[in-house]
């Protein structure tokens, strides 16, 4: 049975369409929902975890409808929101024990020891969580989420605010869980992490899926190589044949795609010079998921004005 399946899943907040007819089918894999802030990632997760009613469409977890069969869905899933909600005045063990009790786990102590061990927290289990690092707190949340051996695990921005080493460790744990047969649904806006650790990614843009595929195939859509240019000065005009402009990144890097990137470098060099650009560097590199994102969605920066009301609606939703 398909672990996660959505059909035309849609959510409106008033007239704002946060999620727009989402069709996804997710198997035993690590599946990432990628998108800028406000693209509908969290809203999607809230609907899949029965916390928010879809306006239209439906979603099933292991065959159970998230609206009609919410109780069964809650037994099958675990949800770790992005807020890092662990009780700092309780010990790690007490935090996990709370969830073990609420899930009604038989042989509770064994289970608690096992999940703490799995997340490498055994040694610090009886310390107050106040003394834990960010990475440890996140692992503690994973331990809480694992007490009832869920079939599907939802992680909202699992590595947000963590340092590089802690991130890597979290992802290693997530990979282990997947190899044990768990389906893992993550949202993230860290492209490189999705690229390295996820089996498939969906790129979300204003509530709509712009693309779903493996990271490798998504990058393959941009061709084998890209030309990256650092230039200044005004330049404009039609590019030479066979070269397409992909966009400009936040760091001032211009990207061009071409079927024969290395051969086109001299062509592009001459053209840029002739059209008034000062060239600082020009190189050929492999595309990243970030480039795919740029090509599909455009700038990652939110170009629309800051809408205070909408921002608060989004905060309240959490």
């Amino acid at each position: 049975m398909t672990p996660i399946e959505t059909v035309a899943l849609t959510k409106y907040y008033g007239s704002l369409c946060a999620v727009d007819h989402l069709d996804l089918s997710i198997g035993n894999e690590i599946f990432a929902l990628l998108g800028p802030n406000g693209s509908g990632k969290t809203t999607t997760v809230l609907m899949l975890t029965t916390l928010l009613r879809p306006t239209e469409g439906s979603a099933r977890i292991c065959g159970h409808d998230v609206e009609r069969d919410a109780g069964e869905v809650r037994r099958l899933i675990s949800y770790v929101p992005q807020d890092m909600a662990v009780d700092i005045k309780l010990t790690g063990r007490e935090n996990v024990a709370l969830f073990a009790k609420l899930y009604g786990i038989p042989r509770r102590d064994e289970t608690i020891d096992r999940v703490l061990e799995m997340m490498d927290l055994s040694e610090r289990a009886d310390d107050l969580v106040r003394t834990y690092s960010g990475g440890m707190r996140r692992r503690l949340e994973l331990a809480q989420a694992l007490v009832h051996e869920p079939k599907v695990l939802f992680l909202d921005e699992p590595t947000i605010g963590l340092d590089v080493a802690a991130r890597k460790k979290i992802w290693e744990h997530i990979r282990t869980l997947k190899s044990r047969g768990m389906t893992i649904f993550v949202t993230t806006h860290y492209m490189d992490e999705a690229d390295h650790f996820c089996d498939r990614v969906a790129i979300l843009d204003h509530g709509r899926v712009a693309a779903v595929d493996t990271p490798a195939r998504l990058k393959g859509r941009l061709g084998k190589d890209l030309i990256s240019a650092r230039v200044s000065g005004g330049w404009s005009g039609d590019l030479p044949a066979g070269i397409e402009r992909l966009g400009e990144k936040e760091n001032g890097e211009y990207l061009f795609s071409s079927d024969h990137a290395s051969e086109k470098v001299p062509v592009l060099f001459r053209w840029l010079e002739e059209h008034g650009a000062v060239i600082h560097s020009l190189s050929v590199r492999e595309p990243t998921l970030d480039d795919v994102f740029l090509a599909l969605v455009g700038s990652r920066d939110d170009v629309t004005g800051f809408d205070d009301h909408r921002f608060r609606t989004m905060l309240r939703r959490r």
Partner: protein
Amino acid sequence: MKDILSYFERDMLRWVRGRVSVISALVVPAAWLIFVGLALPTTFTDHYIDFITPGILVLTMLGASLQGGSLLIFDKILGFLNKFLALPSSRESILYGKILFITTRGLIQATVILLLAFVLGATFLSPWSLVITYGVLAVFGVLLSSFSTTVALYLSDHDAYAAFNAMVSMPLFFTSSALMPYSVMPTWLAPLAYWNPVSYAIDAIRALQEGALAWGRIGALLLLAVIVVGISVRQFRKVTL
């Protein structure tokens, strides 16, 4: 039931380990009793401490219950509520856990006041009156904590909750029979005070001091509590974010 106790245990551990909040919870009611009970110039009674103690007891439950709503605000803002709502255990157990904790904490504070009142010369209550006093306070606590926790479910942040708390607690207290008997109230206040649920609890406890059972007042309080808890449970069952 087990779920309720698990939620209760969590809030209790967090409260007990935050030492300042425990000390504050015990000092504040004592301060009320001493400064209001001993300092107000009154002419309608020679033994104001006996008169004011039921008022301060109920005031303490009122304050504790309304303040207790902020526990849910915290759970909501910090993301705990999302995690709890996604659990298979029944959602109303979250509400019952809060009611149980907030009411228990209120009763602990009430005990401090009772002990202090006796030290300050209040007349002792007979054991059965004492038991019923605790019963009345508990029902009142359940009523108010259920109300405040459910309101918190719909408010977005601390500022909104603090505003709600101030707006509700002050008028409720000052339009009750806590500070003076109906006979000395202005004529516009007396009927208002009589229908105020805070007065139900206060009057019921005052009757106990005379050795009487005010069934009407206790019954009204119970009925109100059943209605409010019923509504609250419905709201918790259907809440989405």
